[in-house]
């Protein structure tokens, strides 16, 4: 009988909520199995059952403290359908888009400056005492200040469009409940050019890192996969609305321009015995090979072009690295994310100069329906909200597929790949090696639901188990 031991990293540092990585080693320190377990919240669907449908866009923001706006807008889009509205007024749609790009901007900034830049600037093996945002603040203070100020800018846009920083009520079934005043607009215009400039700088860091370290990062947690995202009718990237497109690792279309309300005909949510998280896959391909990636990398791969000039130029540079074929390099997520950062601020600039934002026609009314599906490209990937409402206006069914769920199998694949490449055969599991695993996961910017963040929680626990589940060793990093 071979002896095995298990290395557990729990929870994963600098990703949301609770998650743990388990690496099963055999007696020769070879990786025999590696898994990323997400201890996902359960019960949210039950939490909103029985609630009146118009409360849902506000309620769902409680799911996540990092991307509440994405849930707010996906739910609002589903509720548009419930109230029988297929097309919003220009003011309503543009206000929602501004809110969404504000959210995309601030979320991508948070990930890049706070979570990913320490790995890129100091290296995966650097002392964890300096490989964090405080380390960045000390060594690159200007960069850290930029990150904070860009976050604030995005948050202020959310506040101006959603009405509040949290529990925003901006989007309502059939429209929006406020426009953007000239005074509000002018505040954002004042700092706009600075934000564009800083976004260019962030993109440059991500691009240079990827290009300069291409040979090293090409195999790092990488694998071929399908990719899925929303796409505009003309093939452009559209983060707010569109139809579904899925492509293979080499760029062949699996399906294209699919009406997302029919997602159940194309996507299946698979289950595995060892995880509470679902494992979605493309129905026509099956569970073994039908899983796919979502998020910035998938969006850049699936779209034909980006409709803002600087982001489009950046996309072309990005695609040139893989000769125009889809990029399957896990670490390229960072570069892709920064292209989207620049795209978001370009879209914000476009919208702020659009007089429709001062329009007063905010809501459309229609005939009530019983069912509605709303999709949006959230910062981490495609977000599905699906509801059924009874004749008393109460929600009777809710199905949510969050971006991190779509990326569940890819994150597991990344963990397996890194574990096999970097941990197998190494007699001692160092913190640096363990961080390699986390670096691969962090590329996806997973949001593991808004677990509680009460005082006294969230240590990093590393546990060694033998093959029978006995604890050999345990290390807790506060």
């Amino acid at each position, binding site marked *: 009988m071979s002896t095995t031991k298990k290395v557990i990293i729990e929870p994963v540092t600098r990703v949301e909520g609770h998650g743990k990585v388990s690496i099963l080693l055999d007696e020769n320190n070879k990786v025999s199995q590696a898994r990323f377990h997400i201890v996902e919240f359960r019960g949210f669907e039950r939490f909103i059952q029985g609630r009146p449908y118009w409360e849902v866009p506000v309620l769902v923001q409680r799911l996540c403290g990092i991307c509440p706006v994405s849930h707010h807008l996906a739910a609002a889009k589903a509720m548009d359908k419930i109230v029988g509205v297929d097309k919003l007024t220009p003011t309503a749609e543009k206000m929602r888009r501004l809110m969404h790009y504000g959210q995309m901007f601030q979320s991508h900034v948070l990930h890049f400056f706070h979570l990913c830049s320490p790995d890129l600037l100091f290296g995966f093996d650097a002392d964890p005492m300096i490989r964090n945002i405080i380390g960045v603040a000390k060594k690159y203070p200007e960069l850290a200040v930029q990150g904070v100020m860009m976050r604030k800018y995005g948050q202020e846009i959310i506040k101006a469009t959603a009405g509040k920083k949290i529990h925003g009520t901006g989007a309502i079934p059939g429209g929006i409940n406020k426009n953007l005043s000239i005074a509000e607009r002018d505040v954002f215009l004042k700092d706009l050019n600075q934000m564009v400039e800083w976004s260019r700088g962030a993109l440059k860091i991500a691009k240079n890192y990827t290009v300069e370290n291409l040979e090293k990062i090409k195999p790092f947690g990488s694998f071929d996969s399908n990719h899925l995202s929303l796409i505009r009718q003309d093939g452009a990237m559209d983060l707010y609305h569109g139809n579904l497109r899925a492509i293979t690792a080499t760029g062949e279309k699996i399906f294209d321009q699919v009406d997302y309300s029919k997602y159940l005909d194309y996507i299946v949510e698979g289950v595995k015995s060892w995880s509470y998280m679902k494992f979605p896959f493309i129905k026509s391909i099956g569970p073994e090979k039908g899983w796919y990636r979502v998020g910035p990398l998938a969006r850049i791969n699936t779209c034909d072009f980006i409709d803002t000039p600087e982001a489009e130029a950046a996309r072309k540079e990005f695609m040139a690295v893989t000769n125009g074929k889809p990029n399957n390099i896990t670490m390229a997520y960072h570069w892709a994310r920064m292209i989207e950062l620049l795209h978001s601020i370009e879209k914000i600039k476009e919208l702020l100069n659009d007089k429709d934002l001062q329009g007063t026609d905010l809501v459309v009314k229609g005939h009530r329906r019983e069912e509605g599906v709303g999709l949006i490209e959230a910062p981490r990937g495609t977000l599905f909200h699906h509801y059924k409402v009874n004749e008393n206006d109460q929600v009777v069914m809710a199905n949510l597929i969050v971006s991190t769920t779509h990326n569940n199998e890819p994150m597991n694949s990344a963990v397996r790949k890194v574990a096999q490449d970097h941990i197998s055969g190494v007699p001692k599991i160092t913190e640096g090696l363990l961080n390699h695993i986390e670096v691969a996961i962090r590329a996806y910017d997973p949001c593991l639901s808004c677990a509680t963040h009460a005082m006294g*929680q969230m240590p990093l626990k590393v546990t060694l188990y033998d093959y029978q589940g006995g604890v050999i060793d345990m290390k807790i990093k506060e």
Partner: protein
Amino acid sequence: MTAEIKVLLIGYGNPARGDDGLGPAVAEIIEQKKIPGVTVDSDYQLTVEDSAQVAENDVVIFVDASVDCAEPFSFEPLMAKESSGFSSHSVEPAEVAALAESLFNSPAKCFMLGIRGYIFEQFKEDMTEKAKNNLQKAVVFLENLLETKNFVASA
């Protein structure tokens, strides 16, 4: 301390997670009182940009639910801490204070008000009765504190 000092109170937590909503509940109550010189903010969790707001104040009180403090609440000075233990997109109050000092030369004296909570893991908007009692006591304490501005002696 003089009456002119600028005070920021940040209550944070998720109101849909039972007693995790203690922080935002305090923020809501204190905001309604419109105490001169006191700015109130509320969020699900702390993030890096809170450091900029911290730096604009003389005194900052972070309010959060606590899983293990003495009942009904604890109130302590908060030292800026350059921790490596980042576990998520959110940051700890001591790390926000450290960022505020490091990036913005923050002069703020920071304090942590932890209110004992009991149930955190389920989706539930209502808090436990014990948590509500602790909340009431914490609010009485805060009202007195914000009136007297006697922060150091109270900690």
